[in-house]
């Protein structure tokens, strides 16, 4: 390195190198590509290569033994004719929409509430947070036991749960899935809203108070509009998480009763590791990635989030 001769000041450029102006100075003492290479290689091998491979495998026939054989569009055309596949897509969508509708209002309320600096709120928030610490596996196993038709809470509270077998009917099983995801992930979204609510400039509330606006008008006319960007971030997370819900389905309902809670992620797992149809499973996986990415992009575009419309306008 020519440290001795190279200038360390922004305005002086080495001749012959075109460089966009940088606020952090020019190339001396800067790390080269070698610093990024090991991580890039590792990540490429274990994340990008599999992603590319899933595309390739979706055009093959493979039962887990031997080598995959090229099968053209066979997997794709079979999937489109598969009623369980079509149903699983609708169920994924339904679970996602229900999740967003339940979790969003709840976590906004909790987040705005937790944004207050009162002592009791801090203590309760710390307790509310516990579900997020647990693995999805632990949470699902726990709720499966708590809601067990024979030994669980429903058997003791028949006035609320009827015959007590929530897992025996579609509405009950779907309800359990939405509820358990809500129980586990509400703290994450609450945390996002809490941070955002604390960042709202106090001036806005002071001005509203001078104008005589009460608590509820302040909530609807200041807090909610100011949380707009967070609603989008949080919803995208819920949508991607909801579409790929898998562990909860596997542990709580096994896709049942029948195929009534078999969402696409669970169907993919079944295709691969129960029916050993890895080609079809790859096609479903790819479809899921495409749908999740598309939904996120559409939401970002529709909401104007990409232009980062500032909530600071007029402050």
């Amino acid at each position: 390195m020519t440290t001795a001769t190279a200038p360390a000041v922004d305005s002086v450029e080495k001749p012959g190198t075109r460089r966009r102006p940088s606020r952090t100075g020019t190339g001396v003492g800067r790390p080269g590509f070698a610093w990024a290479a090991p991580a890039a290689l590792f990540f490429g091998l274990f994340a990008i290569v599999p992603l590319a491979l899933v595309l390739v495998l979706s055009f093959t026939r493979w039962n887990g033994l031997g080598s995959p054989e090229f099968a053209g569009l066979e997997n794709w055309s079979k999937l489109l004719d598969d009623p369980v596949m079509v149903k699983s897509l609708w169920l994924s969508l339904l679970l996602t929409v229900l999740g967003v509708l339940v979790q969003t209002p709840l976590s906004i309320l909790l987040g705005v509430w937790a944004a207050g600096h009162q002592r009791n709120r801090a203590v309760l928030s710390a307790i509310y947070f516990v579900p997020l610490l647990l693995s999805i596996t632990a949470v699902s196993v726990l709720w499966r036991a708590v809601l067990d038709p024979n030994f669980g809470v429903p058997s003791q509270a028949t006035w609320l749960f009827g015959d007590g077998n929530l897992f025996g009917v579609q509405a009950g099983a779907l309800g359990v899935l939405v509820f358990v995801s809500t129980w586990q992930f509400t703290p994450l979204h609450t945390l996002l809203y809490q941070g955002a609510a604390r960042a709202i400039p106090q001036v806005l509330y002071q001005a509203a108070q001078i104008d005589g606006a009460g608590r509820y008008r302040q909530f609807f006319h200041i807090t909610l509009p100011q949380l707009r960007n967070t609603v989008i971030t949080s919803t995208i997370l819920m949508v991607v998480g909801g579409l790929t819900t898998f562990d909860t389905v596997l542990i709580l309902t096994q896709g049942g009763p029948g195929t009534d809670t078999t969402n696409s992620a669970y169907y993919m797992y079944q295709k691969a590791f129960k029916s050993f149809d890895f080609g079809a499973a790859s096609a479903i996986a790819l479809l899921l990635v495409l749908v999740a990415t598309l939904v996120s992009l559409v939401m970002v575009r529709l909401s104007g989030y990409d232009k980062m419309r500032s909530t600071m306008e007029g402050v």
Partner: protein
Amino acid sequence: MRKRPHYLAGFGSVVWLFVVGLPLYVMLVATFQSRADYAANGPLGLPGNLTLDNYVNDLDNGFAQYFLNTVVVTVAVVAIVLVLVPPLAYAIVRGDGKATGRVFRLFLLGLAIPSQAVIVPMFYLINEAGLYDNLLGVILPTAAFAMPVCTLILSGVMRDITPELYEAMTVDGASPRRIFRDLVLPLSKSGLSTIVVFSSLQAWNGFLFPLVLTQSSENKVITMGLYDFQTEHGVDIPGLLAAVVLSMLPILLVYLFARRALVQGLMGVGGK
């Protein structure tokens, strides 16, 4: 500014406390009862004779091994992340080549890949590499999938180091290696602890990769232990719930003693 208390919100907060606390209460109470007592008292009843048998039995029936395996996986994942991510984040923040920019975009793309999407090819690759039913086969993909969020977190922290500090060291003729060691690492301590927490949570709580990439009981991690316990002895609810408690114990301890770092690490979960 002191506000009058909000009674409706207070009521709501108690309701939510009940929703959050009820299953945790049922769990704790159940684990200290024998199966017969639990069946007699019901999940909401008050326990009579307390016993530690459920925990002892679980540990005897493999959970000690699963616990140890999970520790191995977690430590290895954190080690890989700590070796690979800081130089990467440094290169992203301070490197001036187009290549580093491309690498960063690659990792941003990684944020959008759910692990479900790649389990089939991962199963294929790990099989081909002869790592099926081997903890290393779980460690490698788990580390790779923790990297995008860690990179995002750490490069964010490194970006906050003021350019003047870099320039001062550069004027002194410091090499990138020295700047990294003497300036960047010491000033990114908060980010480093966040990525340690995030990646260890990912490893400790990971389920999908162990589910499809391991099989034998000597290579089981604790989440798999829970899942198999439930499918095989689902009726032994006190034993099952004691296993759940064992699986969450280390995280709860960290939560008690290092809440701030843990919460920041969990915010990273949102990126996934």
